[in-house]
């Protein structure tokens, strides 16, 4: 008889693996990918391909020649970062900006901290915010969606986002009613399906929610983070809307415009940079929701969730230290 293997218990393992989790996330992103291809056509494919390829390439390059460590490009995390990065930029972004963004995402956001599992911030958001600050013009020139099979009605190539129109209108002293009358403002149906200007993957709330439900069912994310962000945004924005409906827009508007759904469901739930306990996840989600609305209402940018997530990422270690799971035998009396 050949030698027996000795190791500690347990002697069986569930079927979870890192790559399985990562590719489940990619699968969850497919509906939003299809919507972006529908609205932006070849441009969407171009941006996705460049972003994913650049992220995987830079991870390989850094691991092979700088760290000289084991290669982990097969675990799928670079692919996830690549798709998410692409989702956070306009479909007409010049390729070289995207490549620089991918380098920052992988090089600064991930590898500089030691690779997967050690990055305190969501790498794709690090890349996105870097591009937003460095290339503000290119990063905020959104193409108008051109549905694949629809007749072309306008000649416009780029247009403002719903949040952009709102911010500008408020800045110009217009009332909400006046702003909503703007012909560029997407209506309810467009906001839900994603037929509006915006970053590649942030537009279709329906597609993003669909993927989110899939991830919750497959236990890749916990519902606590997205639900607490969305609920906080709704309640907080709702309070101000009740106080002054002509200055603060209705709360549902905030849910279906800009990157809120993408951020809440796919960026804030990044395992590595979000808290571990369920209590901690709720605190983190509420924090992101509050900060998002604060930035949207009173900040310099029309959009706020990227910054809100990055800032709460920084609080994750503190939240982990203080928000412990409910221990067995410590009954809540």
């Amino acid at each position, binding site marked *: 008889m050949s030698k027996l293997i000795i*190791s500690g218990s347990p*002697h069986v*393992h569930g079927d979870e693996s890192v790559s399985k989790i990562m590719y489940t996330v990619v699968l969850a992103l497919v509906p939003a990918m299809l919507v972006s291809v529908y609205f932006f056509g070849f441009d969407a494919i171009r941006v996705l391909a460049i972003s994913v390829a650049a992220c995987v390439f830079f991870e390989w390059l850094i691991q092979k020649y700088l760290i000289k460590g084991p290669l982990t490009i097969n675990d799928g995390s670079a692919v996830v970062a690549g798709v998410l990065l692409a989702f956070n930029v306009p479909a007409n972004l010049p390729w070289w900006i995207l490549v620089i963004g991918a380098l920052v995402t992988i090089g600064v956001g991930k590898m500089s901290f030691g690779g997967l599992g050690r990055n305190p911030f969501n790498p794709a958001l690090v890349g996105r915010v870097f591009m937003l600050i460095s290339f503000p013009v290119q990063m905020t020139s959104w193409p108008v969606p051109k549905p694949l099979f629809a007749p072309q009605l306008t000649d416009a190539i780029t247009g403002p986002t719903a949040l952009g129109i709102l911010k500008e209108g408020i800045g110009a002293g217009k009332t909400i009613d006046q702003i909503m009358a703007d012909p560029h403002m997407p209506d309810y149906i467009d906001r839900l399906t994603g037929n509006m200007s915006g970053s590649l993957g942030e537009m279709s709330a329906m597609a993003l929610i669909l993927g989110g439900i899939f991830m919750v069912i497959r236990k890749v994310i916990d519902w606590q983070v997205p639900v607490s962000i969305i609920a906080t945004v709704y309640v907080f924005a709702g309070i101000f809307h009740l106080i002054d409906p002509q200055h603060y827009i209705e709360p549902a508007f905030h849910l279906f415009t800009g990157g809120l759904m993408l951020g809440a469901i796919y960026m804030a739930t990044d395992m*590595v940079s979000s808290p571990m306990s369920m209590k901690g996840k709720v605190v983190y989600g509420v924090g992101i929701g509050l900060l998002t609305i604060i930035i949207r209402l009173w900040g310099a940018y029309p959009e706020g969730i990227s910054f809100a997530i990055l800032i709460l990422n920084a609080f994750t270690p503190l939240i982990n230290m203080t928000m412990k799971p409910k221990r067995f035998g410590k*009954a809540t009396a």
Partner: protein
Amino acid sequence: MKLKTFALGGVHPEEHKLSANAPIVNLPLPAQLVVPLGQNLGAPPKPIVKKGDEVKTGQLIARAEAFISANLHAPATGKVVKVDEATDTSGYRRPAIYIEVSGEDKWAEGINPTNELVTRLDYSRDEIIAKVKEAGIVGLGGATFPTHVKLMLPPGKKADYLLINGVECEPYLTSDHRLMLEKAQEIMQGIRLMMIALEVKRAIIGVENNKPDAIAHLAAMALAHPGISVQALKVKYPQGGEKQLIKALVNREVPSGKLPIEVGCVVSNVGTAFAVYEAVTKNKPLIERVVTVTGLGLTKPSNFLVRIGTPVSALIQAAGGMPENSGKIINGGPMMGKAMTTPEVPVVKGSSGILIMPRELSSRKEPQACIRCSKCTTVCPMGLEPYLLARLSKLERYEDTEREQIMDCIECGSCQFTCPSNIPLLDYLRLGKFRTGQLIRNRK
């Protein structure tokens, strides 16, 4: 109806109850028995026989001298050939009594070795405890805590419930399942006797819902026994854990660092209840037990009634022999059992099963970086943070592991089972528990 279960965490490993339909079979006596002295939690008993002594089946061969200890009896008739060391199932060398088996079973005086059902219950509390102590009974669920000690409640403590563990949540194991099907009457008597000893009015037998035949059979039997009921439980590992079982059955939480009696409960295994019955009504010491021998490659997954001291290799032989591609022999179940270095070790009181794993399933997968997915925290039935405890243990920060309640870890392995990065969390936790325990003891 929603089935009862414990609240926090838990996992559901793939079930392979291969031997569930194999009735309990008597395993023939081997030529030699090796009876290790340390088969119980606590101090090992002291041998009272020497080389050359003739012993009868059931005769006392080692006496418990400490409070937490258990007597040991000759599992068969024969001659003591030596008192020497032997490798036990965990790979340690321990003192053991070697008995050359004569082949003929001559039982020691006063023991009733027949299978007839005795339903006499007019024993006093002290009588029951004395007989259980004499018979060397320990918890047969695997923890091997001396049963007579458990039956003697600390002064001032009162038990409301006797909870009987028929959960058998380990995948593959079926020894308790078969016992519940084949010895239900005897188990009921054993429970009644323990209820008398503990002076409790209510006993609940918890059985996981993957054994509907056992639940139905026990429930039918329990009708004749007022105070005893059967509760079907949702299938979830580690429900056989004492604290998880109490939570599932009576919704009470044993406080951190305390014993079940703190919440008015005493927990005992179905196998132990059977042993108590035999000890009290038949004066039969604990010299045999039911052992499941199983594995995916095994030709005859079986449940054997085995004399203590029988080599594990004889059990494997009787179950069809070691499959060609075997990689691991586990004493116990796949979640909490110990990998054995050799099958040439004796069956002891705590052996509930022998599991043979094919080579391709025997090696661990390559560990990867922790992605902080928090699955280990979600599945921990004690509400601990395994990722954190493992990290602190690795950094040798034992004051921090103590503060994070590492001593509450029940070593169920759910965290490691679920870890997508294949990190050996439980290895680190065990090491951390050991070191933290030293730290706590040194402080006293």
